[in-house]
């Protein structure tokens, strides 16, 4: 094995936290390279530089990988233990469906640039928008979990779906103050994941670049 993998990450990025969790579950030691999203976004605004550059980026085995879900699938194929996808085709499809629902239908509609753009358009509209799309996404997610969850999102094994869950619940509660009472299964699983060491080390507050109190 060559040098330690390098993860370009931002403490508050939901997509970065997914990769951090996957690396922790796979017990892969890596070097954390902090990227300040706020400064980078300002730089992009002023110079329009490197539009493709966003976090997370993982440099591993001589490759530079982007897109959190693609990175996680790569890690699961090359370091199969513990598995992040069930073996059974049905459960595997369920795990991916839940993960992609979060990654495609909720996450992009509530990220920081969207929120800021809409609040700038009309004060308070960004808050309304993010709450609306998180609630809409959670309603569908709760139904999916009702059908497929056991201890975890899909059955009793941690999967790619669980890896995607904490960051969106964190945002829902801490950033957008979404009422979680209509989502008892999401809440139960999220609370359970919060107790696991791999999810704790990946938590935004525990990253080297998190602001200290």
């Amino acid at each position: 094995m060559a040098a330690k993998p390098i993860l370009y990450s931002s403490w508050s990025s939901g997509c970065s936290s997914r990769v951090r969790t996957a690396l922790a579950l796979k017990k892969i030691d890596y070097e954390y390279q902090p990227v300040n999203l706020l400064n980078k976004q300002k730089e992009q605004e002023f110079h329009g530089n490197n539009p493709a550059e966003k976090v997370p980026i993982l440099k591993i085995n001589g490759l530079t990988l982007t897109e959190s879900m693609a990175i996680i699938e790569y890690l699961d194929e090359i370091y199969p233990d513990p598995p992040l996808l069930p073996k059974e085709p049905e459960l595997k499809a369920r795990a991916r469906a839940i993960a992609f629902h979060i990654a495609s239908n909720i996450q992009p509609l509530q990220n920081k640039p969207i929120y800021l753009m809409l609040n700038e358009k009309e004060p308070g509209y960004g808050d309304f928008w993010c709450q609306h799309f998180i609630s809409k996404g959670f309603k569908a997610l709760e139904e999916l979990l009702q059908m497929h969850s056991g201890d975890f999102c899909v059955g009793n094994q941690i999967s790619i779906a669980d890896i995607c869950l904490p960051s969106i619940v964190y945002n829902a509660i801490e950033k957008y103050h979404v009422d979680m009472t209509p989502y008892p299964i999401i809440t139960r699983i999220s609370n359970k994941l919060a107790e696991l060491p791999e999810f704790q080390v990946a938590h935004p507050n525990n990253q080297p670049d998190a602001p200290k109190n």
Partner: protein
Amino acid sequence: MAKPILYSYWRSSCAWRVRIALALKNIDYEYRPIDLFSEESKNNAEFVKHNPAKKVPTLVINGLSLTESLAIIEYLDEAYPDPPFLPKELDKRSYSRAIALHIVASIQPLQAINIHKMLNEKEPGYGDFWCNHFVNKGFLALEELLKKHSGKYCVGDQLTIADINLPSIIYNAKIYKVDMSKYPTITRINEILAEDFRFKLAHPDNQPDAPNKN
């Protein structure tokens, strides 16, 4: 074996991807149209049974009701491996997925029909501006990715999951009046794909529920 059923809407980008995947795998299926703008259509009892969230695409196959276009496509590729949607090489697999996910997670959701409508209702023309802005932003990054990884297709010279996701976003880009001359690689690949009969079969205009069929 009962024929698979695809609940689809002609103009849904996500359903379009699954239609392409089914055509590439040469899987015959029954098309069940769901009008996304009709509550009556979405509340169809058979459809709701398979997808309580009432979203398209929903593919009923091998006794399963599958949702989320990328999850469906990955399922199809594992259940029916020929022709493959992912290269064997680990790096190319990751690049294919990264391009597909960039389209599906970073561009598609921000310019979906409901978003466009919601914002145009908020302020006339703002939805148009918004969608044009985010497609351009996404395409800037996509063009860079394709310059690095494309051959004849998005990744190398083999059709992949990345190509399956490309046509639908370009169709929408034209609706939002995106200037495609800024994206020569995206344009070139899309033109190659448009000539493939399986991509033609899956095109919105060729679906049973497309309006104004001639």
